């Protein structure tokens, strides 16, 4: 049984087709990178996995069960911005998930439970290299540190799937490669299934195990919204070579140019 399976999924807003004919099976432990032109529905796809959007047609299953129609603790998320709580210190940001799980009414842990949660959160912070900053507020951290915190915060509740929506898009290149190492390390250590959107095709080509390219295969210049994007390439990362990289890049460029012309 696949961890995530999509069966002929469509997403439409009125007559605007965003995604069409999506069929996909992802096994536990895979690391999928999602690339494609902007406006090609990558984020919509992620939001459907998250439960924030529902498919207009078709179905999504998670470990064989229909995907819940709202976000839940089995699917963690890291956004590009606003992923951490500004009013909580670094340590309390990570403890929050543990507290919510253990204290349904008050949302706060006390005594021994609190000590255990703090210990667990500190281990998680150490794993992402943030232990020294545990009493600071997120606004006092750099962008890279905030994303490390967001990862730690998501992983402390042990989600089955980790969704990353361009998590490193706003970071400097040097920091970004540090973050790649960290994500690969966490993925391996926690046995996660990862879906990561990236704008950077190169990132998609070597990070993870599987590359999914979202693109429009049908164009109607008179009605640019009549056809949606679908998965045009679904490749194991090892099998990608230079020629293919150029082809995909050209495809994605063309879609972006078409969209710009249509607009």
């Amino acid at each position, binding site marked *: 049984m696949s961890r995530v399976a999509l069966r002929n999924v469509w997403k439409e807003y009125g007559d605007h087709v965003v995604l069409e004919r999506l069929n996909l099976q992802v096994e536990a432990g895979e690391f999928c990178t999602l690339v494609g032109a902007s406006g090609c529905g990558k984020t919509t796809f992620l939001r459907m996995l998250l439960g924030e959007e529902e498919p207009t047609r078709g179905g999504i299953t998670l470990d064989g069960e229909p995907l819940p129609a709202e976000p*839940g603790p089995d699917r963690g998320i890291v956004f590009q911005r606003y992923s951490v709580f500004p*009013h909580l210190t670094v340590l309390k940001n990570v403890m929050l998930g543990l507290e*919510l799980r253990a204290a349904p009414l008050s*949302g706060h842990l006390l005594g021994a439970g609190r000590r255990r949660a703090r210990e667990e959160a500190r281990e998680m912070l150490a794993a992402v290299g943030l232990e020294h900053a545990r009493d600071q507020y997120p606004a006092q951290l750099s962008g890279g540190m905030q994303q490390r915190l967001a990862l730690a915060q998501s992983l402390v509740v042990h989600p089955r799937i980790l969704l990353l929506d361009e998590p490193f898009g706003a970071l400097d290149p040097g920091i970004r490669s540090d973050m790649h190492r960290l994500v690969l390390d966490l993925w391996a250590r926690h046995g996660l299934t990862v879906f990561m959107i990236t704008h950077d095709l190169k990132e998609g080509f070597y990070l993870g195990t599987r590359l999914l390219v979202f693109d429009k295969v049908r164009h109607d210049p008179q009605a640019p919204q009549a056809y949606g994007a679908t998965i045009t390439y679904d490749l194991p990362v090892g099998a990608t070579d230079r020629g293919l990289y150029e082809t995909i890049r050209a495809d994605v460029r063309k879609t972006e140019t078409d969209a710009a012309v249509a607009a």
Partner: protein
Amino acid sequence: MKRLINFQPSRTTGLALGLLPFVLLLLAYLMASDARLAENPNDKLLPSFASLGEAVHRMAVEPDKRTGEVLLWADTGASLRRLALGVGISALIGLAFGVALGAIPLVRAGLSPFVEGLSLIPPMAILPVLFVVFGLDEVSKVVLIVFGIAPFIVRDLQQRTRELPRELIVKAQTLGGSTWQIVLRVVLPQILPRLLDAVRLSLGAAWLFLIAAEAIAATEGLGYRIFLVRRYLAMDVILPYVAWITLLAYLTDVALRLLTRAAFPWYRHAVAKGVA
């Protein structure tokens, strides 16, 4: 020479410039008062500083012959009590309804048009209703303040709650939070400093409604006293009272600002970085 828009005053220059209008106003008052008193020593419109001082002494130090109370302090106590009750109740209503309206679409759908309608009723227009329903004593004054500012606070906090990044609410759900937990641990703590901001903004209106209510029916209070002594053209009492009310309003504002800073250290960082 730099352009005017690029010219930043130094700290001392800034302070001096800030004080200048106050000094000018005082000077203008002094000159006008002197001129009028030279013409008519019994003029009551612009009393000299000496007679203002006498009046302050009479009101703030000597007990009143009739009641035995020192009037300024009795008035201040009565007014501040009404103000604190009215603003406090409004803040609680604002917090409860603002967060519920902002965070829960069903509540918003049901109550938002009603709150909006309520906030459009001019509070002064229903003051007679309040007097009829609650009588002429304390309750109607407090209710007038609540009626005047609570709808504003509710609507402001509803807006602030809705402005919290959607990402944070989604994130809290992926950490397993229920609606109640998310309101308690994610929404409320982030709305509290904004509540203090809203209270600060509504204090001016709160004073307005307080003084209006006291002017119409009261037996003590700052507004009551001003409107009482107006009958005798007692500018020597009115002017210090107005200055005192202004000072109280200023101090309340400063106190709330300091409280925000001390109680929510993260808020300043977050606002400065644009992530709150």
